């Protein structure tokens, strides 16, 4: 239910980056409107958005499950071996000298990406099924937007690559399925975020 007394100006749009006031353009799918003053994107309508977000986010969720259940990377040297999953890594850090490091790893690389994937699915699946936008859609879309800079699975992957280079002289390396799983999660989540047409969803929320 809209509490507004109809004071919102749906005929207008302000640039989110510079606040220049525009009349709200009527876009077709696939069209993008830029601010005339600072050229930031002020409105974009993406092509078949929910049709593409749902499979990408669902595949990201699947890849995520692979990433957290299977072995991630391993080392061996002189008969000693250690193979870890991402969860093992968090547990090992939590039990070690600097437990807070486990929190950093768990929150930024495991919790936030999963939260984003789930939020994307919660918003887009009902709309894909032709239902009206769910009551919680606004809250979940805000989650997606707020978390985006803090979901750091791709940075973790680069960090892993760097650490493997550091270890390469010291021990033999092995890769588990989770490495590819996390890589796929990163790519698919990025795709789902790019496909997401916020304008379509907000229009559905307004129409509810």
């Amino acid at each position, binding site marked *: 239910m809209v509490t507004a007394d109809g004071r*919102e100006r749906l005929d207008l749009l302000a640039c989110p980056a510079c606040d220049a006031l525009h009349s709200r353009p009527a876009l077709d799918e696939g069209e993008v409107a830029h601010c005339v003053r600072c050229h930031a994107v002020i409105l974009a309508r993406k092509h078949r958005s929910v049709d593409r977000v749902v499979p990408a986010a669902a595949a990201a969720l699947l890849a995520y499950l692979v990433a957290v259940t299977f072995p991630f990377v*391993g080392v061996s040297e002189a008969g000693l071996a250690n193979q870890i999953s991402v969860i093992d890594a968090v547990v090992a850090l939590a039990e070690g000298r600097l437990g807070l490091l486990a929190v950093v790893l768990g929150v930024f690389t495991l919790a936030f990406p999963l939260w984003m994937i789930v939020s994307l699915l919660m918003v887009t699946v009902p709309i894909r099924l032709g239902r009206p936008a769910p009551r919680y859609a606004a809250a979940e879309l805000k989650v997606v937007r707020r978390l985006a*800079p803090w979901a750091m699975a791709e940075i973790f992957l680069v960090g892993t690559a*760097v650490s493997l280079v550091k270890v390469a002289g010291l*021990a033999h390396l092995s890769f588990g399925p989770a490495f590819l799983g996390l890589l796929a999660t990163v790519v698919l989540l990025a795709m789902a975020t790019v496909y997401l047409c916020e304008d379509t969803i*907000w229009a559905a929320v307004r129409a509810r």
Partner: protein
Amino acid sequence: MRSAAEEGLALCRYCRTVVPADEPRCPVCHDRIVLRQPRQLQRVWAFWLVALIAYVPANLLPIMETVTLGRGDPQTIIGGVFVLLEHHDYFIAGVVFVASIIIPTAKFGAIGWLAIAAARTRVRHPEGLHRVHRVVELVGRWSMIDVFVVAVLVALVQLGAVAQVRPGVGVLPFALTVIFSMLSAGALDPRVFWDKFDPEPLQGSAV
């Protein structure tokens, strides 16, 4: 070019609905309507200062310690870069150097400069400041690489007497530096540059 603020209107930052600026909440997504965050520059500087203070121990203290055959070898951030250089891993050394040294220091300078510019009464080139802010927001998070390097090495390299990696306390202030500099950049609203946009040069002796 009129801004929404000049017309007494405000844009909801989430759902991009234009509403009167005196509306307390967005009618569509119920987010708080804030025309411009009051005291935003204080917030920017506060986060900036925390990040800068944390950056000192982050560089001075070891971020990890490699124990091979009983001998411990603590490593600072810059020490880690040198180890990679010694092993001729120039590309990776470059990645770590850029992510851990160049980006954080450049970011302190950039955010400080932007915050000073935003405090001025008039801004001549808002598009340049705006672009710098976008780059800072985009690139800053990648400094987290070194934190994850330590996390992976500590969890992975546990080969008893052969080799072990232990975390160094410096990694925590370094993570704080990255987090608080991200918060600092995020607290800055680029619209303030455009609010003060004034292309006219100052007249004569007015200064």
